[in-house]
């Protein structure tokens, strides 16, 4: 396969920024636009750019975990967040809130809903990885 130099250079420049932005969306999601789904989509889009540039091998070497494992982990994480609230005597999916002073950032507010969002993030990324893998595979002779 012929690789385009322009695309390769642009991909290298864009990829890390996009992943960082996706993480920003994930953390900002609770009170601002963003969240696990939007963040996951941005990260997935970054992976798609890598796929267009280098094919499924590049994506494979980038994310070594099997997409199904990743998908399952996301689903489990989101569920456990919901169940966790039961253990503390709350309703399913009830959110807890913590506040602490971080050294540089100042006062940081964290909610347990963040873990749910992280689960969603993983599910979205894993789903796109799965599509990329399947599209990149040779068709089995029928």
């Amino acid at each position, binding site marked *: 396969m012929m690789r385009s130099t322009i695309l390769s250079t642009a991909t290298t420049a864009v990829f890390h920024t996009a992943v960082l932005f996706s993480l920003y969306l994930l953390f900002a999601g609770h009170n601002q636009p963003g969240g696990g789904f939007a963040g996951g989509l941005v990260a997935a889009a970054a992976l798609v750019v890598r796929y267009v540039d280098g094919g499924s091998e590049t994506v494979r070497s980038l994310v070594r975990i*099997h997409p*199904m*494992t990743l*998908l*399952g*982990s*996301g*689903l*489990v*994480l*989101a*569920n*456990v967040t*919901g*169940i966790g609230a*039961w253990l503390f005597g*709350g*309703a*399913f*999916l*009830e*959110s807890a809130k913590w506040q602490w002073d971080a050294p540089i950032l100042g006062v940081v507010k964290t909610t347990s809903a963040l873990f749910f969002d992280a689960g969603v993030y993983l599910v979205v990324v894993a789903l796109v990885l799965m599509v990329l893998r399947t599209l990149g595979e040779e068709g089995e002779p029928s």
Partner: protein
Amino acid sequence: MSILVALPVVLPLLAAGLSLILHRHRLAQRILSTVSVSAVLVTAVVLTVLVDHRGPQAARLGDWPATIGVTLVADRFAAMVLSVSAAMVLAVLVYAIGSPMARDTAQHFHPVYLVLTAGVAMSFLTGDLFNLFVGFEVMLTASYVLMTLGADRAQVRAAMSYVVISLVASMLFLTAVALTYAATGTVNMADLASRLTAIDPAVRHALSLLFLVVFGIKAAIFPLFFWLPDSYPTAPTPVTAIFAGLLTKGGVYAIIRTQTLLFPSSGASRLLLTVAAATMLIGVLGAIAQNDVKRILSFHIVSQIGYMIFGLALFSAAGLAATIFYIGHHIVVKTTLFLVAGLIEEREGTAALDRLGGMVRRQPLLAGLFLLSGLSLAGIPPFSGFIAKLTLVQAGVAAGTDVVVAVSLVVSLLTLFSITKIWAGVFWGEPEDAGLQVRPHPSVALPRLMVVPTVALVAISVAIAANAGSLWALSERAAAGLIDTGPYLEAVLR
């Protein structure tokens, strides 16, 4: 308390996640699925007993007030249908583990099957319209995958029309939910019950009809049933069995829930009566014209849905109780028949009537299982189908709907006719077309994991007939809960 209501949805989803992580360990996946589905069954049964004694129970997710957040509600009707469904999900799971199809596609089958379970539970337990949409979508998305497992040409073609028709129904559903929200400002069903009485009756009727069409497509009622006999028979047998038992019943459940809670009618509905009669008749006529066991049974689903709509259309306590009893009986018997059809196919390599014959000598157990559930489907005493149809006919006569009652009796007779057609084609005689016959392998016994759940389901169906008295009383209490919605509203809005 609220934990119990949410558990049937949460457990299978959690198990689906774990099952995906364990995708390389077949045995672990099997144990996980079986354990979690069994847990759902136990929860559902406990829930049924609980709501029967203490009235409807509600769970507020995230502890948001009912009208803002997501509410799950279990009343007698929901808990009963959920219990029967969970039993079917477990039986078909064991059957699928034993069948060759699931062996080849196991790592995908288990997680998706668990997601389907969660979707079914969510559709039955949800307390608001939008979440009903979500529940249906979860169920349908899983069903798209299950239907195309193995991905041969006929499956993909049939799944195509299934996916398209389901998406059209989903679009209509979403539109209906949006219109309801625009008209009333809420999607919580308990809240809607009071707010819908305050809006323009014309808008109310339009919404009622829109929901009827949406759920009518999912439930496969006349004239919206055409997709069902086309798509169901091509899927792998365990998948067809669970679809036949549960998916259309999700639609019927939603019709009953919305028509009784949101759009209650004081007397029998002429529209629903007509639809019911047409569905019964067209379905069974389609079945008679078919020449393949699975296709005949698929048309029977349509015909049987008509009976359930008939009971609802009467809008009387007796009619609704008969419908609830009928749904319980039908889910069990229909699933069993498809499992038996799968065993026939597994054994002889085909389900076409003209290639089969004489199985009563080679497989007396299989013949017995088919006969018991087939006669129950047709409504022959003393099986559960007889009690279900008898109560339905009594309710119909009491409401003065003699024409529909007559239709339902004729349809019963025709159902019996098409069951005997399968019997004569598969179990008696010799194959008509000897040249086409696939040679059976007499030395290979049927997989025990496939036979045991089938026998268990026939036993459940017989148990339903044997305990008809107490189950009928429970159905009557459930029907009373659908008519007097006070306790339901109180549980949600308190």
